[in-house]
Structures are given as structure tokens and as C-alpha cells.
């Protein structure tokens, strides 16, 4: 187990280096520098432009800039936004709970529905339910998020009026961000001041439902399909036959002897969805005006806010890598053959 951990950690270092190089290069490949974007239509004399660039350290050779950037990172310094002059880490910390709340809700939705659908489809293989799940998940998998989000808004918000169109909470409520998780903050605010904030929690839930479904659709499809195929594979295993030959109840055969082994690859896939969720969050947050990391990064790219883009993406990527890392460890714990490997 220890060497298993060491090997995993060893892979992380080159991965991080790769990410810094990639974001550093990509943002500079987009035409226009931060100063030009800031100034916009107004013209700026070349000398003033050069002075501004020098102040930001952008006049130096690209390799030097990169080394400076790495040096900064090693000191744990994520720089400041060119626009707000605010520390990137502070901005990230403030906005991240909104994205996390959305992503967790989406993942919970995708996992619960996906597992159930996949398990039932596998048990009732070849049934109408099975065919239904397969068809819907194939559609869900290739669903364009933007279009899907707009369709749901039209249906549930505009036509039926069940859910709000955008944001995290109705402006009528007075909720101070404490944890950054709107569900928790609204809950607390409602308890603290029931007269003013009655119904705040319910309103927060209503705001969350639609974006969570939109963001969770692709992971849902992936999880359902993976669960089904993994279950079917394990159901064919000799040890499942042994379990049935022991006279165990169908429920025991499924939940004790099949599901546990079938879930190992599903767990990995769920972990990998964190990447999909972060990517999807960018679009979803834009559609629903959700004030999170996704919207923040899109704005930063538009402004060529190099520090925000570089370090914002680095933070998001670290998060994805970290969850994948944790998934790896869990995979090892769930699978005794790996746990005991020398």
C-alpha cells in the first residue's frame, strides 16, 4: 500500500508542471495582451503601453516569465488579479463554494439516479426498462449542455414557472454568506430571522435544482451505463454462481456479492466525472448566471487576466487531480488484491 501511494504521488509532479506550462502558453496564444484589452477602443501610446507591460513584468523573455511564474508558485504565491488587484487565492476561495455546491448537487443527482438505473437495468436485462435506460443515457451522453439548459429553462421556468431562471437566491432574502454554501447559509438565515427569511431555504433549493440537473446529465448517463455493464460482467462471475448455490436471497446476491465488486470501476468513473463537472460548470454557470468559478474564469479569459486564468485553472486542475488521486486510493481500499500488493 505504501509503495502504491508513493508511485501515485510520483506521477503528480510532472502532471502539475504540464498544467502550468499549458495554461501559461495557451492564454498567451490568444491575441491581445491585458493592457490592450483593458484600454479597448481608446488608443494608447506605445511608450505608455510598454511602461504598463514592464510594470506587469510582461516585457521580459517568455522563458523568464515562465520561470518567474514557477518561482512564485513555489513560494505559494498565486498572484493578484490584474483587474481587481485582489489576491487570486482569495477570489477563488470566495467563489469556489458556489461551484462546489452546484457540482456536489449535480454529482449526487447523477450518482443516485445513475446507480439505481444501472443496477435495475442490469438485473432486468433485456426488459423495456433496460432498453429505456440505455437509450436515454445514450442521448444524455451526447447532450449539448447549452441547448439542454435552455430547453429546461423554457419548460420549467418560463412555461411552468416552477423554478427561477437564474442566480442562487431571490433578492428579497437577506442572507449573509458564511459558509458560501447557499443551502446552508439560507437555512441558517431562516432560523436566525424567521420573519424576514421565511422560505429562504426552499428558494435556494429551487434555484439549485435546474442547474444541478443540467450539469449532472452527462455524468448521469456515464454512471448509469458503467454501472449496468459492470453489474452484468460481475453477474457472470463464478463467485456469483457460488453465492446463488449457497441459497442466499436474491437481494444478498446482488447487494453483497455483486454490487461491491461491480462498484469498483464505477467508483473510478464517478471520480473521473469531477473533470467533466468542472468543465460543464463553466457553461452551466454562464447559462444560469451562477456566480462561481466557471463564470469567473470565463470573465478572466475575456480580460486576458493572466494571473487569474493561469492560477484559477491550476487550482481547478489540482482539484480534479486530487479527487482522482483520492479515487485511486479508495479503489485500492475497495480492492483487496491491490491493498495487499507489495
Amino acid at each position, binding site marked *: 500500500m505504501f509503495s502504491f501511494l508513493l508511485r501515485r504521488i510520483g506521477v503528480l509532479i510532472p502532471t502539475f508542471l504540464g498544467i502550468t506550462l499549458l495554461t501559461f502558453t495557451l492564454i498567451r496564444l490568444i491575441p491581445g495582451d491585458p493592457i490592450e484589452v483593458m484600454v479597448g477602443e481608446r488608443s494608447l501610446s506605445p511608450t505608455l503601453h510598454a511602461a504598463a507591460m514592464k510594470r506587469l513584468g510582461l516585457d521580459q523573455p517568455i522563458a523568464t516569465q515562465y520561470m518567474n511564474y514557477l518561482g512564485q508558485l513555489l513560494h505559494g504565491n498565486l498572484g493578484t488579479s490584474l483587474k481587481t488587484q485582489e489576491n487570486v487565492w482569495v477570489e477563488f476561495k470566495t467563489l469556489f463554494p458556489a461551484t462546489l455546491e452546484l457540482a456536489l448537487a449535480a454529482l449526487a443527482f447523477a450518482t443516485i439516479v445513475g446507480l439505481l438505473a444501472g443496477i435495475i437495468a442490469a438485473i432486468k436485462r433485456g426488459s423495456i426498462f433496460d432498453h429505456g435506460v440505455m437509450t436515454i443515457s445514450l442521448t444524455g451522453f451526447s447532450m449539448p449542455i447549452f441547448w439542454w439548459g435552455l430547453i429546461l429553462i423554457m419548460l420549467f421556468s418560463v412555461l411552468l414557472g416552477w423554478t427561477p431562471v437564474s442566480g442562487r437566491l431571490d433578492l428579497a432574502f437577506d442572507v449573509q454568506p458564511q459558509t458560501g454554501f447557499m443551502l446552508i447559509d439560507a437555512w441558517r438565515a431562516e432560523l436566525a430571522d424567521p420573519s424576514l427569511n421565511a422560505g429562504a431555504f426552499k428558494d435556494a433549493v429551487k434555484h439549485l435544482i435546474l442547474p444541478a440537473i443540467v450539469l449532472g446529465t452527462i455524468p448521469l448517463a456515464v454512471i448509469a451505463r458503467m454501472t449496468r455493464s459492470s453489474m452484468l460482467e460481475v453477474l457472470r462471475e463464478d463467485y456469483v454462481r457460488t453465492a446463488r*448455490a449457497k441459497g*442466499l436471497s436474491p437481494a444478498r446476491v446482488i447487494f453483497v456479492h455483486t454490487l461491491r465488486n461491480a462498484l469498483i470501476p464505477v467508483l473510478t468513473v464517478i471520480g473521473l466525472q469531477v473533470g467533466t463537472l468542472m468543465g460543464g460548470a463553466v457553461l452551466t454557470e454562464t447559462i444560469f448566471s451562477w456566480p462561481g468559478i466557471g463564470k469567473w474564469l470565463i470573465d478572466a479569459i475575456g480580460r486576458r487576466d493572466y494571473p487569474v486564468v493561469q492560477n484559477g485553472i491550476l487550482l481547478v486542475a489540482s482539484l480534479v487531480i486530487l479527487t482522482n488521486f483520492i479515487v485511486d486510493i479508495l479503489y485500492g481500499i475497495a480492492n483487496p488484491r491491490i491493498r495487499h500488493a507489495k
Partner: protein
Amino acid sequence: MTTTQTPLLNIKNLSVEFGSVGNPFRAVEGLDLTVQQGEIVGIVGESGSGKSVTMMAMMGLLEGQGRIVADDLTFDGKNLLTISGRDRRKIVGKDIAMIFQDPMTSLNPSYTVGYQIMEVLKVHQGLRGAALQARALELMELVEIPAAKTRLHAYPHQLSGGMSQRVMIAVALACNPKLLIADEPTTALDVTIQAQIMDLLVNLQKERNMALIMITHDLAVISEVAHRVAVMYAGQVVEIGKVPNLFRHPTHPYTEALLASIPEHSKGARRLSTLPGIVPGQYDRPKGCLLSPRCLYATEHCHQERPGMTQHDTGAVRCFYPLVDKEAV
């Protein structure tokens, strides 16, 4: 077979079909088999002859896959054809137990050996706590697993094939079954281990006077341990008889070929060298006797019609022209 004792297991005219109703494949056809209490019955036959499917059908392990028809399928006075799933599960794993060919894949990799033994004790006998632990340990010692106490906490991948099969036997014997089915229990093991496992099974059978159905390719071993042997070919029993009569004086051409293919007391062959061709599969089953394309004695009659079972003194045979024992004449 003139015994009046009611058999522990009685199978009459069992057929098992796979595939669509319109285009079925009969993996087992018109199979009769009885097993008495405390009896060892051997089942031999080439790969694909339907040995496993017969046993799985009886155990109810084909659920939703094969269609099962029979005139009678009775175990210990219970009709297995009409039994509910719930009632069947009270018998299966308790009164009838089965061990399989590949012990390494037959144990669940995610649970300890102890868990997998204790599970049957909990479900069928309601044992809990210290009594459960003690009984599991007792079973491990019964199947002669060294360092039984520590091995209870081992995972299947930490055991050898032979040890895994011993664990499977411990699981099977946990509730003192009346019938144990061993489906090629040694095929996947090293030659040296094979004899050990076989000895263990036979000793346990004697000790507990349980019935044992031993499916095997090893004719030499079966001739030493079994009381009766059924020979299967392409889903049918072609000959069934007492030991040693069946081995000394085979009456079916297939049995004769099977015996001729083994060099004295060596391991049985999976394919027969003495008969040309292979067991007919789903699409090439002949109209007449299933052996007719390969049989050295086949006549036109054999190609046109399928023979039924004919009873004789020490067994039964499915052939129009049973071999006459020349010495006996």
C-alpha cells in the same frame, strides 16, 4: 436397480433447452438419474455433454436462462420443479451443496474466507457470535487447512488453488448436506493436489454418509471411488451402471471408446483419440442416434432413429446394439 428404497434424488426425463423457443438447443435431453442416500455416483463424458447444466438445472442456478422440463425432479421428498424460489433457497446451500471446477474464481475476491464460510452458517442455521466463529474454525480444520485460525482472515487471492477448493468444500459442508455435487473439483488443480482433494472428498463422504455426485474426466479415479457411474454424451445419459461392471464390461460403444482412450490408470482425455470427430454441437446434431456419425457399429437404423434406454441387470444402456460381453457368453 431393484432397490425399493426411495432415492434421495430422483430425476426422470429431464430436458434443458437454451436459445429461442423457435430454435432451441437441447443441452440435456431425456435424462434419468437416481441417487441413493450415502451413494457416490460418478458422471463422466466429454466437454459439452451437459454434465454441469444437469446439475445447475437441479440446483435452480439456470434461472431465466434454460427452460427446464421433466417428468420428475424430486430431492428428499420435495418437488424441485414446482418449488418456490424461497423454499428452494432453504434447501440449496444447506441440504444440497455444490463445488465447482475453478476454486480460484469461485470465491468472492472482496471478502475473507471466514466471511464466506460464516455467511452460510448465518443464513441457514442462524448462528451468531462465538458459536459462529467456533463452527467456522471447526470447518476449516475439517477440510485440513493448516493455520486455520489465521486463514479465516485471509482473502481468496492469498490462497493457492488447492486451499481455495478446501475452503469451497468447507462452505459446502457447513450445513451437513445430504447431497454434495462436485463438478470437476480437481480439474483446475496441480496433479499432486488433485489426489489430496479427491481423498478429502471421499473421506468426508464416508464419515458423514452423504450422497456425492462426482463429475469428472478422470475415469481411473471414478472407477475406484464411485458406486455407480453415468456416462453422458451430447446431453443424454448413454449408459449407467454399477462399478466395477461398467468398467469391466461396457455395453455402450461410447463407454467402450471412452475406456479404450485411457492408458491404464492415467488421467482421462478431454477428447477421445479412439473415436473420430467431436461431440455434436447446437447445429449438427444428427437425426438418429447422437453417436451415429462417430460410432464404429452404426447401421442404417442408427442413422434414422434415436435409441431409448434399455434396462439390464446392473444398469441401463441407450443403444440398439448393446455390446455383448463375450467372456460371459
